[in-house]
């Protein structure tokens, strides 16, 4: 049998969208696999919401096409696409009860009353809203409103579930709880989901795959692990997590000269020339005495410290620059003065200098 290229569930094909003279999305292509949780991550104005709204049909791209299961839907109006969305401000209908809000999509689809009641009940139970049916949105807490919005989208059994920064209006604790609930629900239903956020931690926690966007383009597409540990460029490394950047010169196999020091780096297929060393703060180890036999040890002096509970963050002057170093699980130990930085070779990530 001839091997067939499996058509992705959603396919963006060289999408460009301009608003006046601003290019919001600039020739983006992206595949979303069936059942996957894909996150569009980036700063405000990077085009992530525009791309999502192009899929929902609120914007018509100036160039390019959107495919759903291989069918071109670029010209299908928004109300005929089955791409239910959870809005950032929830956009609940203020004049309808919770039950009416959730049932609205079924009413439009002329689902028979008995079945509509059954499906509505199921979804309400799924999101934990049983007992709230007769309340109006303004009588609910932010978290409950969020669930109504989710239920309203899920009940129509959308082809693709779209979420546009759904957690940004919740407080920090609730945000973490709801995000794991959303993820659990998505996995339980196996629903193809496209999620938009500017919160990198949220994206790492919730996604199968992340598309990091900047200035209308996808900078990197990958799993959360790959995005964090092997960023494709300086923007991604800087936007996702904290990083120390050291400009240097790849001088020999596995050696980088940066300022006055030479760092042993992982052997790679990289050619000699200017590179940027990327180092996550938690990858560096701090010692009060020089660790014997370890490569990549720098002598430095602590200039500032910030205690964050689960970790202690130090700013250390060494080799003529400042380093950010995270010490996990610090307990009550506080370091000061002269220290030694140990940089494990395998935790160094190299980028071609930009």
């Amino acid at each position: 049998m001839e091997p067939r290229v499996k058509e992705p569930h959603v396919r963006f094909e060289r999408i460009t969208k301009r608003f006046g003279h601003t290019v919001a999305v600039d020739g983006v292509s992206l595949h979303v696999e069936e059942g996957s949780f894909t996150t569009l991550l980036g700063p405000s104005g990077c085009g992530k919401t525009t791309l999502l709204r192009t899929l929902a049909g609120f914007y018509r791209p100036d160039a390019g096409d959107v495919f759903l299961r291989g069918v071109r839907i670029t010209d299908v109006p928004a109300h005929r696409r089955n791409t239910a969305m959870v809005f950032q401000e929830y956009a609940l209908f203020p004049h309808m009860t919770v039950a009416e809000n959730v049932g609205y999509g079924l009413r439009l689809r002329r689902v028979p009353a008995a079945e509509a009641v059954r499906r509505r009940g199921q979804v309400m139970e799924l999101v934990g809203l049983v007992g709230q049916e007769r309340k109006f949105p303004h009588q609910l807490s932010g978290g409950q409103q969020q669930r109504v919005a989710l239920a309203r989208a899920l009940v129509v059994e959308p082809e693709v579930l779209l979420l546009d920064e759904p957690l940004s209006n919740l407080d920090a604790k609730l945000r973490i709880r709801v995000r794991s609930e959303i993820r659990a629900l998505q996995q339980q239903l196996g629903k193809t989901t496209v999620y938009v956020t500017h919160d990198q931690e949220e994206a790492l926690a919730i996604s199968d795959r992340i598309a990091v966007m900047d200035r209308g383009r996808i900078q990197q597409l990958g799993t959360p692990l790959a995005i964090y540990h092997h960023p494709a460029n300086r923007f991604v490394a800087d936007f996702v997590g904290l990083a120390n950047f050291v400009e240097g010169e790849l001088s020999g196999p596995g050696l980088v000269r940066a300022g006055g020091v030479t760092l042993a780096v992982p052997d790679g297929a990289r050619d000699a020339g200017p590179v940027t060393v990327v180092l996550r703060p938690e990858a560096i180890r701090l010692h009060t005495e020089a660790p014997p036999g370890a490569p990549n040890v720098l002598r430095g002096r602590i200039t500032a410290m910030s205690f964050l509970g689960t970790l202690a963050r130090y700013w250390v002057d060494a080799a003529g620059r400042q380093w950010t170093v995270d010490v996990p699980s610090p307990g009550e130990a506080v370091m000061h003065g002269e220290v030694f930085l140990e940089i494990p070779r395998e935790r160094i990530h190299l980028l071609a200098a930009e």
Partner: protein
Amino acid sequence: MAVARWGDLRRHAGDPWLLVTFAGAAAALGIFVLYPAFRVLVYPTWQDYLAIPRSLRWMQAARNSLVMMVISTVTATFIGLAFAFATTRADMPGRRLFRTIAMLPLFAPPFMVAFAYILMFGRQGLVTKSLLGLSANIFGWHGLWLVQTIAFFPLAMLIIAGVLDAVNPSLEHAARNLGADEWTVVKTISLALARPGIAGAMLVVAISVLADFGNAVIIAGGFPLLATEAWFRMEGMGDLKGAALVVAMLLVPTAGLFLLERFWVSRRVYTVVTGRGSRIARPPTPAFLRWAAVAICTLASLLIFLVYFGVIAGAFTTVWGRDWSLTLDHWRLAADRISSLWVSVKIGALAGLITGTVGVLVAFLTSRSLPLRHVLDFLAVLPGALPGVFVGVGYVLAFNPTFIGGTMWTLAAALAFWHLPMGYQAASARFKQIERAIEEAAVNLGATGLRVLRDVYLPLLLPALVEAFAVSFIRAVTNVSIVVFLITPGQVVATFVILNMIQNNIWGAAGALTTMLLLLTFVAIGLTWLSVGRIVRSPGVG
């Protein structure tokens, strides 16, 4: 992003009803707004226009109208400013009472102030003759000046108070903190920030003064004015061309001021209404300002009291100025003409319904990204620039030869579309308050354009609809400027009857019928307040 393009039509192609509705609304506005205006302007020939400067009477009327505009605007704005200032400072004695009293002229029929002041300050005036023993003549420019000042200062007050209220008290405190004394704060911060509001208030008052027909026709006497000249031309001489020419002359300054207000002043307002009530107290008001404002407000309040008192007292007094004994005879006479009140209610309800539905529908359509929506928006606000007498003459020229000519439908349509900007702007404002995402959520779940209107917007806009109905109804039943042109013998409305009574010195019955009209107005305001929780205001213009 906001620019609608023909290409957007494609997105609505799956929604033919939206396009049909759009075409219908555009046609209605074209027929009932644009066409009458067009008819007025092309009715005289260009030779007629060129002859205007040679007509002594018209040049005099134009000059008089402009002089009245200037003097009435200055005094009305000044008193409006005093009231606005008094009602927005917490340390002002009687501020709530003043605010309530100042609103009263807004609910009065547009001829009521003039009528009441004839009773108070005329040859038979209670104040002038009976109390002071003077032989005063209120008819003429000075009487009109007083009347227009009292009738229109509340408009200025509302606008200026809105701006003053929005001045963040923190700015005033900051000025104090930097070393400004009380008077300097008021001068350099509060009033300085309100300057665009004051300019806007002056323009709105000026338009109202220019277009004021009701007061002018009663009290101006032999003093020729553009607003009344058109009616005299048509009624007295059957001179339709002259009437068209005069209202066309009147249109130039009113439309000019209207555009100035809309595109210049309203964009220069510094204060931003955040909706977040930062309600820290304002710093104290300088004592001399406090007492000056209170003095002005007390005097104006007294004059307003006399408006309502005069009309109601007139309805119960046997012979005004001679026999002060009480009687109910006038009510019997008024009861004979009560059918005119029902005609008013019928036409008012019709006008209200049209204004409400067309207003909401057009507001919905202009919020879509449809091509030509700016044209629709323009047509829906255009009537605000047209004086009532202009609309009256326009409808005579446009519809008298047609099948609705001479029916109450012409009058109802004229009143409805003249008041359309109020219904449209109220609905538009509500539309803007409704988050766009709510509509998108409905579309996202599968709703088409008109379905969105029915399921989402109509329920949310119902209060706006009720309000638009109420304002249009109240203004329709109290209107005179359009009524005098479109009245038909079989369908005489109350205001027309009252006008005739006043001109024939049948003051008692006029007072009784006006009192009934007032009751009707306040019942309508009350019912609206009960159903939507808002007090509708109906500036008595025209």
